[in-house]
């Protein structure tokens, strides 16, 4: 294909991606360098019978005007990145110096908003992803052994939690496990403890969010592995059987290695999707117990009337960097595959 034709073919898609994905990243960076204007203060003297007092008032008009003229705010350099709501290096240094044990240090760091969200996001990603891989494979093997007529039905039912809107899916679960819901109320009665509720307990909330994560993404790994199982070579399976391998042994030594490329594909997709965990936190009203990176960006932008663009921008950029770092192994592998193919 000639360069010229190629250019015209990719022009629409490329301009969409540049304008609405690449440029916003640049914009996020620029925004993060500025902070909101301070309010314009006017000091005036009010004199009464007992002498003069200086009073400070906010000049609303001037503040508005300033905001209108320079919507980005005033330049702050990398300041936002290192302030208390983001990387908070100063606070970490202080916590390190004043803490006596590692546990104490950690609990201080955990109280910083950015690290709090980072902890939850990473914990969510790295607990849900392996669970989904293992359970997905187990279900795929089970469904593969089902009679033909039941396979279609099993896949149909499994697709529901995956394709349902995340916000809706998590609401459906939330209504069931909430203190008044069918599961929540039953658990309270079983343990005879009316305080046992999601809203009151951080560990329970974390567990429920992760249960939702597994419920929602399990079908994806199950279906991918199921498709992979259809391509396991019969001959190798038979050979393993003749050599005396048990079902379990041929599973571990034949099937799993055959599915390895799929495992890395599913892992990649899972990491990408789990890192952006957001909707369940909104649905579960979990913000008191669990916040993700996406959620704190959302919260900054939601700041009523006056979105904190700088803070949201800084968190966004740090998030993007984390995403790229976590994807590095895959990118490097794809690059190697490509150069091998082209030579």
């Amino acid at each position, binding site marked *: 294909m000639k360069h010229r034709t190629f250019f015209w073919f990719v022009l629409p898609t490329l301009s969409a991606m540049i304008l609405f994905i690449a440029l916003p990243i640049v914009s996020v960076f620029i925004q993060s360098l500025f902070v909101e204007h301070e309010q314009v203060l006017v000091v005036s003297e009010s004199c009464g019978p007992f002498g003069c007092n200086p009073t400070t008032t906010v000049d609303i008009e001037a503040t508005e005007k300033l905001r209108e003229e320079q919507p980005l705010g005033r330049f702050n350099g990398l300041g936002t990145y290192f302030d208390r709501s983001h990387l908070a290096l100063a606070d970490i240094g202080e916590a390190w110096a004043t803490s006596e044990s590692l546990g104490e240090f950690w609990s201080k760091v955990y109280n910083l908003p950015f690290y709090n969200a980072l902890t939850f996001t990473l914990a969510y990603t790295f607990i849900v992803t392996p669970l989904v891989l293992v359970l997905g494979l187990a279900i795929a093997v089970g469904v593969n052994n089902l009679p033909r007529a039941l396979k279609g039905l099993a896949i*149909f039912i499994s697709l529901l939690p995956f394709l349902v809107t995340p916000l809706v899916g998590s609401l459906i679960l939330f209504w069931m496990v909430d203190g008044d819901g069918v599961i929540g109320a039953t658990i309270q009665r079983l343990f005879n403890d009316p305080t046992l509720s999601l809203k009151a307990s951080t560990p329970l909330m974390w567990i429920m969010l992760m249960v939702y994560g597994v419920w929602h993404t399990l079908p994806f790994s199950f279906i991918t592995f199921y498709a992979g199982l259809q391509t396991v070579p019969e001959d190798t399976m038979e050979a393993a059987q003749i050599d005396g391998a048990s079902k*379990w042994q041929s599973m571990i030594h034949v099937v799993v290695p055959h599915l390895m490329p799929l495992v890395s594909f599913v892992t990649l997709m899972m990491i990408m999707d789990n890192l952006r965990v957001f909707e369940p936190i909104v649905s579960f009203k979990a913000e008191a117990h669990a916040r993700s990176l996406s959620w704190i960006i959302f919260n900054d932008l939601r700041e009523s009337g006056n979105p904190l663009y700088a803070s949201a921008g800084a968190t966004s950029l740090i998030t993007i960097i984390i995403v790229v770092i976590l994807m590095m192994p895959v990118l490097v592998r794809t690059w190697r595959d490509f150069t091998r193919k082209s030579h």
Partner: protein
Amino acid sequence: MATKAQSRMTPLKLFSFGFVALWLIIAAFPFFWTFWGSFKVQADFLSKADWMNALRGTNTIEQTGSAFTGAGYYGAWIEEDFWFNFKNTGIVVFFTVVISLTFGTLGGYALARSGFRYAFWILMAALVFRAMPHITLVSGYLLWFFEWNVWGILPTTIIVLVAINQPFTLWMLHSFFKNIPKDMDESAMVDGCTRFQAFRHVIVPVMWPGVITTGLFSFLLAYNDFTVAVMLLSEENETIIPAINSFMGTTQVEGKVMYAVAAVVSATAPLFVLILFFQRQIVSGLTAGAVKG
């Protein structure tokens, strides 16, 4: 062909069947429960006293005189104008899918037929873009959309969703076009077609299976989107998913929770129908990227 040894019931097999059955119950039960409960009153659906109330509809009978009530649906669709949100979603989804697929087919075809190094870089960049949390991009738009006065309207959201959708569409259609033999369009070009004519007359007629599969996923992305719509649409242009969320925020009053339950069931119904009709295409689309590498 199943041999005797393969069809024998072993404990391992029994365990794996049990496991599948357990999963299917966990997967389906919440939907069934919510659907059933949407025809009850709140005192039954969220019954602290006894969950059997939800099955028997004790309070529903007491309050409405019958075991099933459509009050939640009436409240959501008529009183809270949920149909209006559905109309907005319809517009957003339709245009997002059509524009995404148009851009995606052209781009995916060019990338599949081009061996240039920069074609590879475009795909790599698309992969990274695919991984970005959508909210990070939204935080880049918001200020400018306010400045240019295009915040809150449907076209803005459609364009943003098209762009966010492009990386996925490109990868999917790229791997699909790779499977269409090069000879087909190249022989058309030997016969004197331009590249675009070859695409139009040779490739377009055979591309529909791939385009339909990709379209299903574009549909799902646009339909399920919450992050973009909640930040970029004003209240009068809300689509269904943010609307459900604002039901939850504003309707803590007794009885109004059922509006949200009814809205949730209404929002899930189209997806249910979609899976019913397109199960095969969805499954093949999910695995397309994986199996072809």
